[in-house]
């Protein structure tokens, strides 16, 4: 086993264990912290695949932004010491059966399909290329989704302010 494989197995085991704990933990703040572990390990996977910019975005936006937002809203809406009620065993059993059946089906499909690896020379990914691609209208350009996402962010910002605003009576 070489170093890459060791790193991959480490990140994968952290991701799997922490995501199981995220959905089963009975204390809500702990679930949020396990979600943080999952997101940080995912950014480690991006570093392994040589996408440094994406990994940095994952760390700042997901681990820094969304988890902090979630913890903030947990503190606003829940009592910290409170534990969730146990899930009904019947509901838990049926969900588990559905989920395991779906996972087994997907994994069998993945293992049976022969992916042909790309032979092309890998493109260098640096900030210069990313910025030019995002704003170009050429073959590999992404100007349209970039503009759409900017309008979406504006709409989300205004919408969340309007929704969360206190209504004077």
């Amino acid at each position: 086993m070489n170093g890459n494989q060791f790193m991959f197995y480490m990140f994968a085991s952290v991701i799997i264990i922490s995501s199981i704990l995220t959905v089963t933990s009975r204390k809500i703040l702990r679930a949020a912290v396990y979600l943080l572990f999952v997101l940080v390990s995912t950014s480690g996977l991006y570093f392994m695949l040589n996408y440094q910019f994406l990994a940095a975005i994952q760390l700042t936006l997901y681990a820094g932004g969304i988890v902090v937002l979630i913890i903030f809203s947990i503190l606003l809406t829940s009592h910290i010491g409170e534990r969730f009620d146990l899930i009904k065993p019947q509901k838990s059993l049926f969900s588990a059966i559905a989920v395991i059946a779906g996972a087994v089906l997907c994994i069998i499909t993945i293992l049976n399909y022969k992916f042909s690896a790309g032979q092309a020379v890998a493109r260098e990914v640096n900030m210069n290329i990313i910025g030019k691609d995002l704003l170009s209208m050429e073959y590999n350009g992404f100007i349209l989704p970039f503009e759409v996402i900017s309008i979406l962010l504006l709409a989300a910002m205004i919408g969340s302010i309007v929704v969360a605003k206190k209504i004077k009576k």
Partner: protein
Amino acid sequence: MTEGIPLNYFLILSTLMFFIGIYGFLTRRNLITILMSVELILNSVNINFVAFNNYLYPDRLQGHFFTLFIIAVAAAEAAVAIAIIINIYRNFKSINVEDANEMKY
């Protein structure tokens, strides 16, 4: 830096993460934990996009950019969802899905 790791490993990892998120979505009753399950699902899709980009089409960056856009959409979704959850808490004094059973007073 992926010698010795086939593409399948990444796909199996993201499949497991996706279905763990689905399990949480089905069994949780607190709105914020449901939101966290959705984040897990989106994150697993991101791993898929990035792995496909790196292994199958290394000469393009489409998976990379779509992961960026998914992260932006996830951030917007989390912001709006948390605004709605705080408003629900203000009206119903609880964020369990069973308690929020009417749309307007």
